[in-house]
């Protein structure tokens, strides 16, 4: 059985089509990524999948239960960490987790044991009786995750879970996602972080301007754009974009103290760079070629550089 089945979801806000005929299938047990630029319709789609927003048309089923016809049964099977949602500041970390567990009908002893276990795993046990009000963003997000996984949901939906987090908190979140998946939870993850999606997800949908523009595994998605490798080069002194001008180049991007030259033909790009260095009397400090990346696929699909 599919964990999530969404068919022909549509949602408009006034004259703006936020989500336009989006359909998604997520198999049980997979980690599914939902990528898109800002305003592409990711959060609106997630809000419809979780029953928070009523779609103009279309249906959503969670493990076979229609979210809008039987919301209580559908919501019992999932847990959500909304992008625009947080935990209660006036409760402690422990109270927040226990409160969520109550909504899912866990017995007192079970919810207390599980809450302690999860808070320990997320590095919050020592602060469990501290009001969340005094927590940093990363700690709040960990409490949010602890509350969301306390009942071991069959489906865990995370909307931009690592945005704005420090490295440690980000790693904890990613580890928790992997851990939950290994325990059998299906994961739906929206993210801006393409490498994160690449590392975690078995399948990815890319949404742009309210429409799904691709659904593939990360490797297949990259292969679809396998003509577009790049050469990364750095010179001994700064140069401008104007020196990279040739019909064989797709584009040149400044990348820190380096330049990335995207081309259908890496061999041509390397030879061209050598000729540019010769012509401009530049010394090449480093040069490397790269295979197509998921980021490149994402940029091509969403039309944004």
């Amino acid at each position, binding site marked *: 059985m599919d964990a999530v089945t969404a068919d022909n979801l549509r949602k408009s806000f006034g004259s703006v089509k936020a989500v336009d005929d989006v359909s998604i299938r997520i198999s049980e047990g997979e980690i599914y990524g939902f990528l898109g630029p800002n305003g592409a319709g990711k959060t609106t789609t997630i*809000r419809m999948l979780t029953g928070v*927003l009523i779609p103009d048309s279309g249906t959503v089923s969670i493990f076979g239960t229609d979210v809008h016809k039987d919301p209580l049964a559908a919501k019992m099977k999932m847990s959500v960490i909304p992008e625009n949602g947080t935990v209660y500041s006036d409760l402690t970390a422990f109270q927040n987790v226990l409160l969520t567990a109550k909504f899912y009908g866990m017995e007192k002893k079970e919810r207390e044991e599980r809450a302690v276990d999860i808070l320990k795993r997320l590095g919050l046990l020592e602060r469990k009786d501290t009001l969340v009000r005094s927590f940093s963003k990363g700690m709040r997000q960990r409490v949010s995750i602890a509350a969301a996984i306390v009942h071991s949901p069959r489906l865990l939906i995370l909307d931009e879970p690592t945005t704005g987090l420090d490295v440690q908190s980000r790693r904890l979140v990613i580890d928790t996602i992997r851990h939950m998946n290994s325990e059998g939870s299906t994961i739906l993850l929206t993210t801006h972080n393409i490498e994160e999606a690449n590392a975690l997800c078995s399948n990815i949908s890319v949404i742009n301007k309210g429409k799904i523009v691709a659904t593939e595994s990360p490797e297949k998605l990259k292969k679809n754009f396998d003509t577009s490798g790049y050469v990364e080069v750095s010179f001994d002194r700064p140069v401008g974009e104007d020196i990279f001008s040739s019909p064989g180049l797709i584009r040149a991007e400044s990348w820190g103290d380096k330049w990335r030259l995207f081309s259908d033909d890496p061999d041509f790009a390397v030879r061209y760079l050598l000729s540019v260095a010769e012509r401009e009397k530049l010394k090449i400090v480093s040069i490397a070629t790269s295979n197509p990346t998921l980021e490149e696929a994402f940029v091509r699909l969403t039309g944004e550089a």
Partner: protein
Amino acid sequence: MDWRVFFRSIFAVTEKNMRIYYFKGPVMIFGLLFPLIMFLTFFIGRDLDIISFFPGFLGMMLFFTASSVGPLITPWEKREKTYERLISLPVILESVIIGDLLAGAVFGVLITAIVLFVCALFLNLAVVNAAVLLISMVLGSVAFAALGTLLASPATNNPSNIMMLSSLVRLPLIFISGIFIPLGELTGLYFILTSLSPLTYIVDLFHGALSGNAFYPAWFDIMVIVSVILVFILAAKIIQRRNLVKGV
């Protein structure tokens, strides 16, 4: 629908509200001090018969306490960004509305019961019908808490907007209700205006319970209050559902 999950969600929302919004020092102190201030405002230095005005005073207490915090909960949660998380839990709109309502009602009954008990110690209060007194306190608190939930429904994440709306609605309801002038002495437009306030019927029930001098029969007051509760809940549901459609 799984009714067990539904009722559980109502009680979880109620408990959450009681813990976060009601059972806090400042709110409890306000709840208990407010009746004292109102008492002093209305009775000190004026030649009023405390016993005959006591039902109106009690009704006003119930009205203010049960409907004071409820209007702020939803806008506050929207501002704090906890609302989105709440409605993604196993709840439906009705659970949130009834849970909010129950929390206000429990707070209203509790504070009013304390006020009634303290006043009974110092004033020579008689209770003619204890059952009607109990019913009127419960129904009144539910009705006024339902008003609070309805006032919380407009799409805003700014509690001060709702506070303004709340004052705009609640204060006139006090003044047009039959608190200050016995219903039997009102005629024409005044009587019609008074009939529009749900507080009128609660005060009338209190009159019946404490002195036996009710204007309407108890069944009529109860019927009106139950209808008002249903209308408030239905209106809150319609507005909040519309918010869900609009995504606000």
